[in-house]
């Protein structure tokens, strides 16, 4: 049995002891963060949940003898490494559009030390559906519906003081035309300054990064506009299958994208959608994507009316 399977088994036991009636569980083979293991658990008389187990082992700990007690310095390191998860949990608590966290006893998360490894784990509401994987073709209405749902997600987060910063197909759950955002692991509170000390640091998944995320400066001011950019890229990839294979550099070149878009569909409705919405989402200049998320939603409504 692999070490992680033993960890899962131990955690399930602990959960059972804390009055959670778990009937079954299965490890999901999904790509997530390199240190994260996802387990689907079914709780009696309830729906399915996701158990997330995150490896937060500091380097120093691996060098320690497993029988040795964990000292304060290592504890501090573990907490530092958990910061990203704290952010995610905090964001979930504040943003009802994101998967909600289920309490484990009196806490939202727990730690387990397993030999020379430290893990943090928590239980999250399972969003029905599967990660967004593009189908062959999307209609204009489907693309608009996607953009609209994402805009509403961004609005909820923004109104609660957060931006997601990692919107990408893997972080979107699709279920019969309904789209939900997940994984706020690198979310940011809007009012906080970037707390990095090294300029040029990247945050997010390269292909879907907004240009301003490619080289983040220490005084970066985050706004909802950063979350709009990936919505533009994903909408493009949905509507224009050819762009799914464009190299990173080209998918960010609005002239290339426009050419592909119009070649794919040169109808009036397609032109309006691109010119009025997608071109704004893909604007290199953050401030020009939209002045406010409400204004963007209003503009989208207008476009819907026109191309109805």
């Amino acid at each position, binding site marked *: 049995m692999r070490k992680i399977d033993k960890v899962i088994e131990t955690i399930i036991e602990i959960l059972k002891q804390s009055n959670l009636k778990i009937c079954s569980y299965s490890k999901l083979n999904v790509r997530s963060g390199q240190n994260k293991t996802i387990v689907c658990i079914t709780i009696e008389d309830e729906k399915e949940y996701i158990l997330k187990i995150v490896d937060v082992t500091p380097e120093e700990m691996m060098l320690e003898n497993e029988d040795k007690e964990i000292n304060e310095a290592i504890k501090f390191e573990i907490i530092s490494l958990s910061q990203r998860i704290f952010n995610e949990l905090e964001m979930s608590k504040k943003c009802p559009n994101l998967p909600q966290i289920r309490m484990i006893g009196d806490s939202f998360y727990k730690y387990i030390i397993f030999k020379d490894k430290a893990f943090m784990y928590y239980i999250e509401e399972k969003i029905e559906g599967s990660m967004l994987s593009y189908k062959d073709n999307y209609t204009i209405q489907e693309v608009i519906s996607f953009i609209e749902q994402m805009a509403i997600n961004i609005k909820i987060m923004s109104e609660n003081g957060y931006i997601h910063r990692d919107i990408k197909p893997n972080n979107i759950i699709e279920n019969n035309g309904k789209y939900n955002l997940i994984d706020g692991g690198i979310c940011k509170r809007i009012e906080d300054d970037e707390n990095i000390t090294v300029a040029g640091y990247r945050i997010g998944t390269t292909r879907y990064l907004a240009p301003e995320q490619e080289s983040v400066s220490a005084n970066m001011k985050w706004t909802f506009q950063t979350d709009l950019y990936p919505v533009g890229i994903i909408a493009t990839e949905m509507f224009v299958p050819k762009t799914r294979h464009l190299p990173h550099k080209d998918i960010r070149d609005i002239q290339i994208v426009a050419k592909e878009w119009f070649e794919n569909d040169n109808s009036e409705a397609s032109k309006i959608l691109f010119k009025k919405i997608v071109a704004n989402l893909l604007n290199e*200049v953050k401030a020009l994507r939209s002045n406010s998320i409400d204004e963007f939603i209003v503009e989208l409504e207008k476009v819907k009316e026109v191309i109805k």
Partner: protein
Amino acid sequence: MIYLQHGPMWKPKTEDLLDKQLVNGIIWDPREENIERINMVRKENSNYNRISNVVDLKWFYKQFPNSTMKNLESLDYFPDTIIDRNYFRDIEEVKSKVKKMVEFQEKMNVTEFLSPSLYMASFNERIIDRLFDVDDLFYEFVKKSGKEIILSLIIHESAFDNDTYMKEFIDDISNYIGKYTGVYLVIDRDNSSTIRHSFSETRLANVLKFIYSFKKMKFKVIMGYTGIESINYMAVGADIIATGWFYSLRRFNRLEKGLEEYSNMGRAKKRYLSLNLLSELTIDDNIQSIPSEQKSELYKLIFNGNSLDEEIKTQAYELIPMKNTFIQYFEGMNELNSKFDEIEEVEDKLFELENMINNAIKNVDIYNEKRQGIGSITKKHLLDYLNAIKKFKEENYI
């Protein structure tokens, strides 16, 4: 709206324009007149206070060692030394000058505060960081005034050769959303073209993009020192066009405006702004020299129905007062401005503009075809504008 760009020999011309309600505001130039006289004249004539009064501080004159300061010399918001990067090391000194600029504007009882501008030759100059420092300071001093606060920029037109750095600059300006309410932009026009009103299509397209970006960020845009090319600015949403009676007030050029040593001021010709031709015609060569048999046909093409038309038709060139030609220019500019004001969407404004230009090109062709022994009219500027609009529309998916 049309603002008057204040300049030399101003009082009678300004008061004529005020009487005829042809301007909605004045951008005072403290280089051309001292504040005491301006205040005195404003006190005597209530017309001045019906409209907006703002002052372009012209701080950038101190960036040029050989500039002709004129009245600016005596103003206490100018430092004794040249404004360069070293100057900004003394933060207390900068702060005290910014404070004095605010006091100066308060003394002038301005309706909107204009921040001091620093001359930018390009969008990747180091001075830009200092400009933003000054803008931040300025904002702190005036934020509680309850008045609009306008960010002032002066940029050489070659900065618009490409938009790479321009985009970064626009992004930086977005930090002022919610603080500054507008942008006052002066473009230092290149002096190399001998053709009046012509404008490199790439540069003009980028200027339009620049204005359009500010409008998207909901800034009020005031374009300073503009002429007929301002129809392009109006079409992408510029709110206010500032222009003046002399050509030097309709086109800012660093040489002509005394930033560098230069002297070449010929006698101004009397001109007529024809809306059908979107051109400024010389009254003697282009209009009064038309042979009698062609007058009725070409007059129809040229005249807008302004107050000056009859005078040109009936009076000798020498008897037409220069100031009447200025009034006609402002009448024409107001007419153009209200056309665009009535249209809401930028794409509709651009559509209107393209139609106007295409018509003007046709009319210029007719004029040039029919003329006999009289000077031709250039359509170069109109073609420049059309190409720039096309480029702008393509790049902005309009």
